Each structure stands twice: as structure tokens, then as C-alpha cells.
């Protein structure tokens, strides 16, 4: 069995939200980039403390939602009306082998649109929701089942009542002593060098 290891970074525990909050502020001010705090629940204002930027998720979702609307519009107008032929895109209708029919004296032109709103609405929501889900996973880089932090025994507390700061070795300002010192200075406990087995 190999014992080849790679340093992932320093992990320090803090007791209480307040300590963690203030610690985060100081790490931020110390100019670290590749670091993060781990807590059992989202902490109010922590983004400010860490100096994170806002999530871009909403923009993705907007695009997804609009796609849904367009899909629904096309699907319905294509199969139920002669709209596309009337604007000279008849080949689409031919391609989809559509068969617009007259029901309850409702026309097969674009004026029947009101009847299509419900489905357009639903598909908008559906597409947005899925964009949210998959966009989120993408942004978080999850699922990632294997992670160096899981090596640390004490880290398991994060999902109960543990509050951690982890400064990664990849950070340019990372240094065995300097970082450890910083963590001690800002009141980190059980400071641990997390190593990743290879």
C-alpha cells in the first residue's frame, strides 16, 4: 500500500458562529483566496465576511425558463395551427408531420394562442426548475463523493455542530508556518494538516 500523500491544507475548528464569522473576516483580510468555511447551516452574512461574489445561477435559470417557453410555443403552434406555414416555414410542419384540426370552431391560426398559455407556463417552470437543479450542481462541483477533507476525523462534526475553516495548500499565500500561525492567532482549535492519500 502506498503511503504517498499530498497536503490538502489546514483545517481549524472554531466554537460558535460568531467566532467563525470574525475568523473568516480575518482570513479574508489576510488575502487568502483558496479557502472556505464549513458549517452545519448557512450563516447569515458569511459571504460578506468571506468576500464572495453573488451567484450567477439566476441568469442561467432565466435562460432555461425562456427555452421552456419557446419549446412549448413551438410544439403547440407547430402541431395545432398553420402559423409556421403562414410565415413561410411550412417545411417545419411537413417535417414534424403535423395535422392541425378544427375543434369547437376554434381556428387553426395564431389567434388560438390563448388556449396554449397553460402549457407554455408549465413548461417554463419545468425547464427553470431543472436548470436550477443541474446549474446548482455544476456550480458547486457536486456530486463529488471523494474529498480530502473527509479524511479528517474531526471534520465529520461539520454536519452536526462543528464550525471549520479550511485553507488549502493550493493557495499562493499558503505556507506551513504562516498559515498555521494565522489560524492560531484568530482562535482556531484542533488545527490539523489535512493530507490526501494518493
Amino acid at each position, binding site marked *: 500500500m502506498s503511503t504517498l500523500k499530498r497536503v490538502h491544507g489546514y483545517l481549524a475548528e472554531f466554537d460558535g458562529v460568531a467566532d467563525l464569522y470574525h475568523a473568516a473576516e480575518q482570513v479574508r483580510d489576510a488575502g487568502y483566496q483558496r479557502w472556505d468555511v464549513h458549517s452545519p447551516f448557512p450563516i447569515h452574512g458569511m459571504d460578506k465576511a468571506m468576500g464572495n461574489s453573488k451567484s450567477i445561477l439566476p441568469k442561467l435559470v432565466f435562460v432555461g425558463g425562456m427555452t421552456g417557453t419557446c419549446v412549448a410555443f413551438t410544439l403547440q403552434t407547430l402541431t395545432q395551427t398553420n402559423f409556421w406555414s403562414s410565415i413561410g416555414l411550412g417545411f417545419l410542419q*411537413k417535417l414534424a*408531420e403535423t*395535422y392541425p384540426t378544427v375543434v369547437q370552431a376554434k381556428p387553426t391560426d395564431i389567434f388560438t394562442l390563448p388556449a396554449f398559455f397553460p402549457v407554455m407556463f408549465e413548461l417554463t417552470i419545468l425547464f427553470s426548475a431543472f436548470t436550477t437543479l443541474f446549474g446548482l450542481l455544476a456550480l458547486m462541483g457536486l*456530486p*463529488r*463523493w*471523494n*474529498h480530502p477533507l*473527509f*479524511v479528517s*476525523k474531526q471534520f465529520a462534526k461539520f454536519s452536526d455542530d462543528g464550525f471549520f475553516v479550511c485553507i488549502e495548500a493550493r493557495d499562493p499565500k499558503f505556507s506551513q508556518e504562516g498559515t498555521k500561525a494565522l489560524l492560531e492567532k484568530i482562535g482556531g482549535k484542533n488545527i490539523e494538516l489535512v493530507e490526501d*492519500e494518493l
Partner: protein
Amino acid sequence: MGNFFPRWTNWLPLKLAVAAGFIVFGVSLAVPYYFTPKYTRVGYEPTQPVPFSHKIHAGQLGLDCRYCHSFAEVSSHANVPTNQTCYNCHGPGKGNIKSASPKLEKVIKAAETGKPIEWVKIHKAPDYVYFNHSAHLNRGISCQNCHGQINEMEVVKHAEPHSMGWCLECHRNPEEKLRPLDQITNLNYKPEQLNRAGFYEGLLKKGIKADEIADTIESGKKASQLDEILALASGKYGEKVTQLEVGTQLKKHWQVQPPENCTTCHR
């Protein structure tokens, strides 16, 4: 204790996603091809009890389709000929053609026993589809439009998908198929071979105004006699007669309006 999940699992989601993508793509391509009449019906070419060759009869001998399929023009059903029909030419003591040939054994036997020959059905509309041959044959749709080049088939095979979409296609654009009534059973019909003068003369003889014809060729145009029409036509369609030319004329003057209602075929 270390990680519970091995490192490779981190790539798993991505791999699965990619694989799924490929599968979905493949299925959505395969289904429309393999699961539609285009694939499942076209090319169906069963061996028949009697090796009757349409190639010889309809092709080389130029027998008219209606000689055997005699009710196609009057009935919904294009009847398969009675054994008598074969017997008239091939039967010993009748036409006596090749009556000794072993290939005709079944025909002779059927004539004696009265038990019919069991031909294998090739073109089969579903039970809830009511297709009517006479409606098509009387209005300028040829056998060949739905059954293909029968006159070149040694053994008859399914030439067209006969799916609902396929039917609608033609019902929407009849001008792409319509042809003069005397060409219905001409399986080698090519519009180019039509004599343009003769065609328009025929229309005029039917009492259709020259102006209407001219207008159909190019809306707004007028014409008083044949050569003007011909001039117009060759101007629009070129030297040879085209299908579109024939089709649009016939559609207009026969008032061909193929129905697209459910009730046309489903009752």
C-alpha cells in the same frame, strides 16, 4: 479512516451523463426509422403460392391492370382475380397457354376442386382504415402512385409506406401526383412524354375556357386559343411537360379537393 468513496467515483457522474446523452440520442434516431411503416412495411416481399410474374404480364405483355383487378374502378376493393381469369388463358381447353407448366399446377387444381388459391396479402390497411380504390382511380391517381413499379416486379413487394402521414402528404399536395385519366394504368407514365398540345386540347374539348387554363398557368394571364396557352406553358414550365403543370391544371379543372377529415378513412 480515510474516504469512504474511492477517488474514481468523482468522475462517475460525468461519465454517466455522457453515456445517457448518447443513448437518448441513439434511441431518438432509431425509433423513427425502425418503428415506422417506412421500415416495417416497405420491402415486404413474400413468396406467392403461384409464381405469377407482374413483370411478364403487366410489363412485357402490357396487360392492363384492370384485366385482372376488374372492379378497382367501381368498388372500394381492388379484387384479386378469380381463378377463372387465370384459367381463361392458361386452362387446358381454354387459352391453353403453358397449361402443362408445373408453375400453373395450383391454378388447374383450383379450377377442378373449386378451392381457391391462397395468395399472400402484401398491401394491408389496418382494420379501422376504409380505403376506397374507386375514389382514387376515377380522379387521376394511378396504381403506380401507391403500389410502385409493379410492372417491373417479378415478385410483388410493398413499395410505399402507406402510413397515415404518407397518405396525408398526397392529400395535401395532389398536384404532385394527378395525371390524365387515360394514363391511370400506364405504369411507365412520365409527364415529359405527354404531348403538351394534346393535353391542353383535351382540356379545351372538356369545355374549359382558355382563359381559365391560362390563369391557372400564371394567374392574371389571358389566352384565347391553344397556341397562346402553349406559349405561356412553355414559358413557365420549359419545353417538356412537367408533373406540376399537369397536376395544377387537373386539380383546378376537376375541382380535386382531397379530404383531410378523420371520417374520410375512419368510421
